Every structure is written in structure tokens, then in C-alpha cells.
């Protein structure tokens, strides 16, 4: 806040954003919550049926299974990319960038980021085709290096489909934390690294004491945005496996989509979507509060 100017006037700046948010998000969301308490198949008007959908949800094994698949997605889209992202960003910045050439580090970072700019429709075409059982590139490659015995129908068998999507998500996601963390590292005083090095600290010690401590705010941003993305992941599942084979790759978001548009059970689809919203909202509030507390502590 700027001294001498009250806070009140700032509310004005929120007006356009708030109107758009209300029309495009809040009203449809409210509508969706309402539908979750109705029986509605999209033709006759919605019929209020109280908590029926919610009771069904709690006993719906497919719903709970879809949430278990979400845990795999969180590992693939949050845990692994953040950990690898931290290590790669630190290696690129601390060792490759400073010891070899900043240009090499910049180029490598851009290469890591490439899968991030791939449209999911395209990524799915590329990956789906690499993992194809008959003439897919991966099986061809395994054969070429003498590991033909490992050939598999990667996306088509229930035992590997979810893990295959997970592997694809690691590939897609890694560039995001690397880019964010590397830009965060620019903010750290380079003399810290040089002083630590003179004191004989090795890469791992510098990583822990300087890198990790210095970019905490960015770690929050990455973990929050990736967790939200992982919990509501839809595109890759839709494009790669349509939830199958069977229900082995169904996630909550995809499950609600099929209830909406395939099963025509709009009310129940709305219940799943609302439940998912509640979970993601709780996670987001948890992170934002922790982040605000951290900022307040550092400001003290």
C-alpha cells in the first residue's frame, strides 16, 4: 500500500476481474453444485433428490479407484518433476552454467521445456504412436538393443497403462519446474556460491544450503500449480487411453466427463465434479496459507 492513499480505492481495480470471474466461473460452479443434488439426464428439467448422489458417491468403488489413480498422477506430475527439476536446475545453474557456458545451460533448459509447449492432442498422437504394440518405436527400440523380451502393449494392458501415462506426464512436466527454478536462482547472490565453494562445500552441500533455501517461494508456486493440475488431469487420459483398458486409468475428472456426456447422468457427473472441486480447493487453501505465512515470517 502506498502511504497517504487509502486502501479502499484499490477495490475498483478488482471490478472487471470480479465480474468476469462471477459470470464465467462462480455462476456455472454454483449451477454445478445445484445439479449435484438433482436427478438430471439432460432432457427433462432437473429433479431435486437431496443427498442421493452424494450417498452413491461414497459407496462408488469406481470413484475411489479414480482417486487412487490421482495419487499416481501426483507422483508423476508433482513429486518427480519437482525433485528432478530441482536437481537439474541446480546442476545447470551451479555446474554447467558457471563452469562451462551459460549458453549451453540456456539451450538445455529450452530443450527440457519443449514438451511443455506440445499441445496434448499432439503429444498423445506422438506418444500413443511410440508406445504402439505392433510397430511402435519403443518396442522397435527394445528389439534393436536385444531386449525384445520386454516388448509390451504399454497403453493397452491394465498393468502398465497408468504407469505409461505417468511416465508421459513426467516427460511433459519436467520443463516447467526447471524453467521456474532456474529463473529463481538468478536472484540468489552468486557470491554465496563462490564463498561456499572456497570453504570447500561440495555441490550437494551448496544445493542444500543455498539453492533449496533460496528458492522456497518458487517451490511453493510449482508444487501448488502442479498439484492442482495433477488432481484435475483430463487431457492426457482422454487422449491416450479414454480411461481404459477397463477403468484402469480413470481419474475423477475423466469419470465425471463420461457421466456427463456418455452416460448422460448429468446430476451424478456434477456430484463427482463438485467433490473434486472441494478436494482441490482444500489443497489450494492449504498451500496458499502456508505460503502467506512464510512470506510474513520472512518480512519480519
Amino acid at each position: 500500500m502506498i502511504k497517504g492513499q487509502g486502501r479502499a480505492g484499490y477495490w475498483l481495480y478488482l471490478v472487471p476481474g470480479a465480474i468476469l470471474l462471477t459470470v464465467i466461473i462462480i455462476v456455472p460452479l454454483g449451477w454445478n453444485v445445484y445439479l449435484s443434488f438433482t436427478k438430471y439426464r439432460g432432457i427433462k428439467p432437473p429433479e431435486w433428490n437431496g443427498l442421493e448422489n452424494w450417498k452413491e458417491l461414497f459407496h462408488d468403488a469406481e470413484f475411489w479407484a479414480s482417486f487412487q489413480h490421482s495419487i499416481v498422477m501426483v507422483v508423476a506430475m508433482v513429486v518427480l518433476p519437482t525433485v528432478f527439476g530441482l536437481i537439474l536446475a541446480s546442476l545447470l545453474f551451479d555446474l554447467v552454467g558457471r563452469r562451462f557456458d551459460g549458453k549451453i545451460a540456456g539451450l538445455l533448459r529450452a530443450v527440457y521445456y519443449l514438451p511443455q509447449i506440445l499441445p496434448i492432442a499432439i503429444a498423445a498422437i506422438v506418444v500413443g504412436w511410440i508406445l504402439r504394440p505392433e510397430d511402435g518405436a519403443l518396442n522397435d527400440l527394445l528389439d534393436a538393443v536385444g531386449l525384445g523380451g520386454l516388448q509390451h502393449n504399454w497403453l493397452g494392458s491394465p498393468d502398465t497403462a497408468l504407469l505409461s501415462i505417468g511416465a508421459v506426464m513426467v516427460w511433459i512436466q519436467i520443463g516447467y519446474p526447471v524453467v521456474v527454478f532456474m529463473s529463481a536462482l538468478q536472484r540468489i547472490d552468486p557470491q554465496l556460491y563462490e564463498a561456499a565453494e572456497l570453504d570447500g562445500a561440495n555441490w550437494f552441500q551448496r544445493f542444500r544450503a543455498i539453492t533449496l533455501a533460496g528458492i522456497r517461494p518458487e517451490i511453493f508456486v510449482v508444487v501448488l500449480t502442479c498439484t492442482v493440475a495433477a488432481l484435475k488431469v483430463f487431457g492426457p487420459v482422454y487422449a491416450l487411453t479414454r480411461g481404459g483398458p477397463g477403468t484402469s486409468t480413470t481419474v475423477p475428472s475423466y469419470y465425471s466427463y463420461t457421466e456427463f456426456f456418455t452416460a448422460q447422468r448429468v446430476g451424478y457427473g456434477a456430484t463427482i465434479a463438485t467433490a473434486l472441486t472441494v478436494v482441490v480447493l482444500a489443497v489450494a487453501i492449504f498451500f496458499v496459507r502456508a505460503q502467506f505465512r512464510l512470506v510474513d515470517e520472512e518480512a519480519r
Partner: protein
Amino acid sequence: MTAQLMDDEKTTETRAPQNRRRRRTGLEWLALAITVLVAVVMIAPLLLVVLNAVKSPADFSAHGPLGLPTEIYLDGIKTFWNAVDFPRKVWNSLLISSAVAVLGVLVSVLNAYALGIGRVKGRMWVLVAFLLATIVPQEALLYPLYIMFKNVGLYDTIWSVVVVFIVIHGAFGTYLLASVFGAFPKELLEAAALDGASRRQILWKVVVPVCRPTLAVLAVFFFIWTWNEFLIPLSFLVSADNQTVQVGIATLQGERIMNVTTISASALLGIAPTLLFFLVFQRTLTRGITAGAIK
């Protein structure tokens, strides 16, 4: 959040020469080897696409996906280009993504000004409310939005998609910029206020110019994200004339079984514009950031 998200090699570059005199250790070579190896793995699928986009179907069935093409074959690309009316789809995508990049950043700036610099009361909850836009699963919005757009005549126009993504991506922009503005140098704001600048003047003459590099990065993100969006354009842009590149590719896939070379060609053409945009703007961003960096 720092002011620069993407490109700033300056710091590392200028320091390199003095370090180069020292002998590199085995660990440093190992680090280079690891990071290069990861890069090779990351880019391999894309190289495969290029390789197979210029291969004839006969060549593919004879030598498989890993063999080098025996001759450059462009019919796959031609077939795809004509089948989806590619220029038209690119134009639609371009229009939608540019509009979201500009208007989304504008809305984010206004929101973040109130939250990050104005520090309005209850700003955490206001922020969470905005974040709802990225929290709500998109498929939960489809049905209500469909009815609303139908009623106001926005259904099957590119503006329906533009409005939705201004809000959805603007939520991320608000979150990011609120933390950037939160760390804005107080002295600059107070000096401007002492000179008698109004709140509006401070925003446009002080805050926005200083943060321009971040805003540029945000605009690039918005552009790429919107370009790549799939579910909402698929649902609201039903006529072929309004469709985006992604929807066009997906529809074509559904319509007929394409052979591998056409699939690769479609993938190549689907990636090419974003890739081009990314390469062009990575340079612009570097320049913008060095010029406007907060020190």
C-alpha cells in the same frame, strides 16, 4: 516469484571466463553428461516425429519408425494441410491466443494491483476466489456455459473461448503478479506518490513499465497455453470455420484412420507454430529482461 521466468543468461555468461581458467573436475563433466543425456531423452520423441513426417508409407513399413527416410516425402504434410484447411485453423488459433494473451494480462495486472500493491483487506481470500478459476475442473463448467453462451449468442464464436480463457489463465496471472507486485520496491511507489501521482498513474507509469519483462513472459505463457487448449474449444467451436488447430487435428483423427506418415505430418504441423513462436520470443524476452531488470 522473480521478475524473470524464462531467459536470463547474462549473469551466468559474464562470469564464465574467470572460472574457465580453473580445471574442470570430474563432477562437473559428469553434470554436463547427465544434463545432456536428459536433453536427448526429452527431444527424442520430437525428432522421431520429424523423421517420420517426411517418410513415405512404403518406407515406413519396410524400415519401421527408427530407420532414416530413404527419400524426402512431403505428401503426408500436403494431405493433412488440405484435409483440415490448415491456414484457416492457424488463423483462428492465432486470433484466440493473441486476444487471451493481451486481455488476460490486462485483467491480471488490474487484479494484482489491488492485491499485491493495494493489499486490500482479506486479499488471501480474494486470491483463493480467483484461483477457483484454475481449481474447478473444466468439464464442470461446460454444461452451464453452453446454455449461457447459447442465450447470448456467443456459442460457436471464437469469443466464447477467448472469454473463458481470459478468466482461467488470468487466475494464474493474478496469483503470479500478486506475488511479484507484493515485492515491488516501496521506495519507487512512495517517490511517485510524493510527486503527486494518482493511483492510476502509478500503475501505468511506474508499476507496469518496471514489470514489463514479467508481463511479457506471462503473455507468452498465455499464448502457448491457449493455443494448446483442447476440451473447451472442442465443445464450443463446432463449425469447421471456427475451429482451432488442436480441434482440427483431433477431428481429423476421428474421421478416418490416418497412416503413420500423415499422423506424423499432422503432429509436425501442429507443433510448428508454437515452436516458432517460442523460439522467436525467447530472444525477445532475453532482450526485454536485460533492459528492464529490477536492480
